[in-house]
């Protein structure tokens, strides 16, 4: 997070919505008039089941759009944990979906935040919003943008589905609340 630039990595398996929350961050950053890039992993691994995307949000023009060492990384499954824990920049934060990622050896030089987002999503009544819950957790603990901007981005990306916008907003707020109470 040096000089107004934040680099994110969102990883999990296909269907966990990691590309989507990257898009939400990117859309929100654009609405906030920040510079932003979003790159999906587009190699053959997508067909095999894992997915990830990287997002850079910056106050100034973005040179390199690639993210080798994220400031903030999110891993929604165990394979992504193994693959990316070493890449997080020292002093950075790794968010872990503890509903399905076991308590594995971590690192002393980064913050590891374990949140059972599948369980929280289940309580909301919709298992598929675990990704949005995690987005709320990230927003509560390591915010780059305003809460309202992210909610606006969620609503915009829901398109013509107000019930989806509502569900996602609730999941986002549940993530924020959980983080403030328990982390």
């Amino acid at each position, binding site marked *: 997070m040096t000089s107004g630039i934040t680099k994110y990595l969102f990883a999990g398996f296909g269907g966990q919505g990691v590309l989507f929350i990257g*898009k939400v961050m*990117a*859309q929100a950053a*654009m609405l906030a008039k920040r510079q*932003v*890039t*979003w*790159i*999906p992993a*587009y*190699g*053959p691994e997508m067909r095999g089941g894992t997915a990830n995307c990287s997002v850079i949000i910056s106050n100034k023009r*973005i*040179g*390199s*759009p*690639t993210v*080798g060492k994220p400031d903030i990384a999110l891993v929604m499954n165990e394979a992504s944990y193994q693959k990316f824990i070493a890449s997080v920049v020292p002093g950075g934060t790794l968010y872990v979906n503890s509903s399905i990622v076991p308590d594995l050896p971590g690192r002393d030089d980064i913050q590891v935040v374990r949140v059972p987002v599948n369980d929280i999503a289940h309580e909301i009544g919709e298992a598929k919003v675990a990704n949005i819950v995690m987005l709320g957790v990230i927003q509560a603990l390591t915010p780059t943008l305003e809460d309202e901007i992210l909610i606006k981005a969620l609503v915009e990306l829901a398109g013509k589905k107000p019930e989806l916008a509502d569900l996602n907003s609730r999941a986002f707020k549940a993530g924020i609340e959980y983080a403030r109470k328990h982390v």
Partner: protein
Amino acid sequence: MAMLMKGNEAIAEAAIQAGCRLFYGYPITPSTEIPEYMSKKMKSSGGTYLQAESEVAAINMVYGAGAVGERVMTGTSSPGFSLMQEGLSYLFAAEIPCVIVDVMRSGPGLGGLGPTQADYFQLTKGGGHGDYHGIVLAPASVQEMVDLTKEAFDIADYYRNLVIVAVDGILGQMMEPVEFPPYQGRKLSPKTWAASGAEGRPKNNVISYYLTPDLGESENLRWGQKISLMKESEQRFSEYLMDDAEFAFVAFGTSARITETAVDMLREEGIKVGLFRPVTLWPFPEKGLSARLPQIKGLMSVELSSGQMVEDVKLIVNGQAPVGLCKRQGGMTPEPEEVVDAFKKQLLGRGQG
């Protein structure tokens, strides 16, 4: 209003806005969003999207559509681009304007999907047979993909020449905010040469072959004049912190973006470096680079290939300064730190730290 768009989609939308109403292609990663977008939007724009049976067929459909004077495009990725080379040579000889997008993937062979620039020789030296050149535009952001794609159609019509938009997989797949401002195009002559129906006028032939050597030579000389004109008039580049630079990086596309960050890192250490970014790969912006040489103590080409553009850089530098190379291949990109290290080792004569 700005919107987030993938580079490939932005190219397709820009083409439609530029009046392209015919798209022929065969899907191949990492360019597939181009035909995908065209298949969704072309019909409602009053045009035709057609998935060809192969890249060879696609480029010849482009030939036909361009010959009747329509704005036409195809998009592909390196192995498909290889299959199109014969067609490009014919398109040049028949002087058919068209736009071809190559979203490069690594080779040789089938190659991986990762970002690469290893088609540089094929793009700039004439990948097909005979003496010809396409104008090659190399955007480095999604916005530039929009702007240059729109302009590509004008350039193609202006010279009656093929124009290639060349990007790597990162640019094709990346989303950035883009805008589509109204475009003021070039003043273009009507296409009186097109085989667009001869009612009320003498017929037009749009052909590429002249079997007698004397005619073959005179046509080649005429095409040579056009190549010289394009070379003189269409060189483009962009510079970053070059005004007081003592060292210059030369890079295009994604490697230019990575290098820009490396320039910032070196500047923080007080080393006066800048970036010279070719926007046209052909014609290579030799006038712009030559103009910088008196102030430059050394250059480094940064490429996603074994080092192809560096040959053109060396031709222009012509021994006046050392020319280094920082490269990754096969779909890998260097971190900015790697570029910094390569610069220090090769041009400052010292290792890291």
